[in-house]
């Protein structure tokens, strides 16, 4: 009477830790930028704030590899310096925002009741505040520094991550396997970490990639308003904005920061979309 186990002989290729070359390229570029953020400033040929060329929007030359900006500062040096801000602040903020949001979202989904209601309404209300306005108030109150920027960006993007994770977790929470665990007498932390979290990990990571791109954009917006990274330093977004007029002059000053932003955001998404099946497709 073992008719139902006859299919055991066919071996199915399960998920593995290996991942494809697209993901590897993505990871490679992320690691490259992380390295630049760490050691780049020591290799920069000029101080990022110093006006080194009498000409503005200069072309690419042997002295200035990526041209000069609207004041005649070396773009190459400024990009190396900006990597520290963009990669560092954005990565830290997105990690914090998603971690907090996902944990709170899962707790709200499992706990339900008044906890869920109060937290959801609070964060919804918070979502209603325009992000740049919120940044303006915070920076006006406590001044701009890197920790303040990271926390501000976290605060801006956490409610979205919370909403997303909660919506996913609510669905998983009603599945029978969670009921079985609950009937076994498992505690809430176990339900959240072992039963629910692995089943929402894939979409949450995809959301993280998207949120990272948004944070890079908002960071440059804050810098443009003078709230973000303080001059003479600048993040990549700010580099694009301050040199935007150079576009009509065909200056490389605006092209290279754009390429830097594009390469980072695309590679983050390439990496996340091609994570090892062991992580990404656990629910398949």
């Amino acid at each position, binding site marked *: 009477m073992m008719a139902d186990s006859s299919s055991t002989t066919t071996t199915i290729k399960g998920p593995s830790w290996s991942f494809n070359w697209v993901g590897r390229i993505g990871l490679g570029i992320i690691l490259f930028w992380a390295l630049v953020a760490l050691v780049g400033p020591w290799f920069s040929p000029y101080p990022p704030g110093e006006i080194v060329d009498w000409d503005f929007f200069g072309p690419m030359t042997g002295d200035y590899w990526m041209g000069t900006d609207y004041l005649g500062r070396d773009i190459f040096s400024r990009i190396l310096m900006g990597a520290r801000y963009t990669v560092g602040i954005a990565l830290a903020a997105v990690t914090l925002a998603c971690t907090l949001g996902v944990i709170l979202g899962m707790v709200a989904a499992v706990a339900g009741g008044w906890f869920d209601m109060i937290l959801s309404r609070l964060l919804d209300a918070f979502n209603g505040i325009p992000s740049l306005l919120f940044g303006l108030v915070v920076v006006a109150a406590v001044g701009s520094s890197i920790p303040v920027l990271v926390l501000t960006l976290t605060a801006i993007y956490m409610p979205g991550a919370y909403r997303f994770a909660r919506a996913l977790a609510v669905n998983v929470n009603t599945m029978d396997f969670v009921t*079985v665990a609950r009937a076994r007498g498992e505690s809430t932390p176990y339900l959240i970490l072992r039963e629910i979290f692995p089943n929402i990990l894939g979409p949450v990571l995809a959301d993280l990639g998207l949120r990272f791109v948004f944070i890079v954009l908002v960071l440059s917006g804050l810098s443009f308003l003078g709230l973000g990274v303080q001059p003479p330093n600048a993040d990549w977004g700010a580099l694009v904005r301050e040199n935007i007029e150079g576009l009509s002059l065909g200056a490389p000053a605006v092209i290279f920061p754009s390429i830097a932003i594009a390469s980072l955001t695309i590679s983050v998404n390439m990496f996340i979309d091609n994570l090892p099946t062991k992580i990404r497709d656990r629910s398949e």
Partner: protein
Amino acid sequence: MTEPLVSVRDLRIGATTDAGRKVEIIKGVNFDIAPGEIVALIGESGSGKTTIALSLMGHTRTGCRIDDGSIRLDQSDITTMSERDRMQVRGTEVSYVPQSAAAAFNPSKRIMDQVIEIAAIHDLMPRAEAEKKAVELFRALALPDADTLGQRYPHQVSGGQLQRLSAAMALIGDPKLVIFDEPTTALDVTTQIEVLRAFKSVMKKGGIAGVYVSHDLAVVAQIADRIIVLKGGEIQEVGTAEQILNAPQHAYTKQLLAAFEPVPHQPVAPTAQPARPKPILEVYDLSAGYGHMRNGVPAAKILKSVNFKIERGRNLGVIGESGSGKSTLARAVAGILPAYQGAVMVDGMEQKRDLKSRSKEELRRMQIVFQLADTALNPTHSIGTLLARPLTFYEGLRGKARDARVAELLDMVHLPAALRHRLPGELSGGQKQRVNLARALAANPELILCDEITSALDTVVAAAILELLKELQRELGLSYMFISHDLSTVEAICDDVLVMYKGEVVEALPAARMSTEATHPYSRLLISSVPRLDTGWLSGLEQDPELLAQFANR
């Protein structure tokens, strides 16, 4: 002999998997359908019965394609036609009745608009005429309020009515062939009878040929002239309904029939435990419901004062239609849905109503197994992890001792130990349900609440699971509370049966003499509605129409 309406020759349908591997789903199938004849395609899930049925419309599910062979329907050659020509044939020559009528109707459009859609698409007749014809079909299908029914929306009619309406939709274009894809599988037995009768009479009257896809031999016996038994994309046996049921030739057909015959349950002899005469489970005046609580009473009351008792080593079956509160009863007993009134006693000790206030030991003694094994196993955990968790949780087992116990549990449910490295998604339905059982056994329980655990499985697989349950009971002295809508399953494993209707227990019966001793009109109706493996059963069945009107929810 007249020319057959449909002839299928050497049909081969294949698909390409995500990994790029080619699989053959249908491996060279030949059959004919005479005009006005109803042919049933029967087999377990994955046998290709729906794939063949859909191919008669020239349709394949995404990823599949017709590789070889020919399908001729009347004058048209389905396989060589262009997609545009096939669209002309669909609805007028051949039409389709899906399994889930609820999903097949657009909830935002009135029923009439949807039923006459085929006539409108193919420009068959003016609207007024089509509506008149639809009303005639409603009458022929024994639908109530035929004149005004079309003005309602799909959610305003019952499931059985919707299934008949989808037949009306299929018949409006006067097709020569109608494909029924498991149309009664999702219905209750009492509703199923009415739907089957309606299908049968309307098909006979119109002289329409049909293909009836089902896994249920007893249902097929009522409606089909001929039966084709399929397995693994190949025809195993073809014969008239009489011949397949009474004189099956092929071993697989015999196996199917054997799985259908209820094996009467032999009560386990009371083992040497006379010192503990207390019943394993007693339930007094149990009431539970859903929704907002007001004055300690929920808005929607589902269970109403349920009382019963399960003696140690005996099995209790709970039967009733969907919505009768069977699953709610199991949930209330397990504490997943806290009851608002009444008491649950396990081995003479009263249990707290709420899951959270029960002790670990109390939770361990009573385990629950759910219907859908796919959703009851966390897809991200390996089988080994799934089985190890209750061992660690209840007994604190770790390391080698735990691994040994996992292997032992897998052996108990007749699964190879190597399976513990697999994920649930890599197992078949029957294997998953065995893992589910093994996980319940890991807690070393005394009582297992089985909530429709065989309902989603194929007949042969379900029979194997029942056999396993009996074996485990003999070895471990378990008791089961077995919830099912399938009476033959209950008969096969239970000593006593509770009949539930609208949240109340209407009757308690000994399982073996269920059909003879039932006195309550609802139990009689329910028991008499279960299809028998007999081609004349439906036409010979006489049910009191008043009784039907009173209890059947349609």
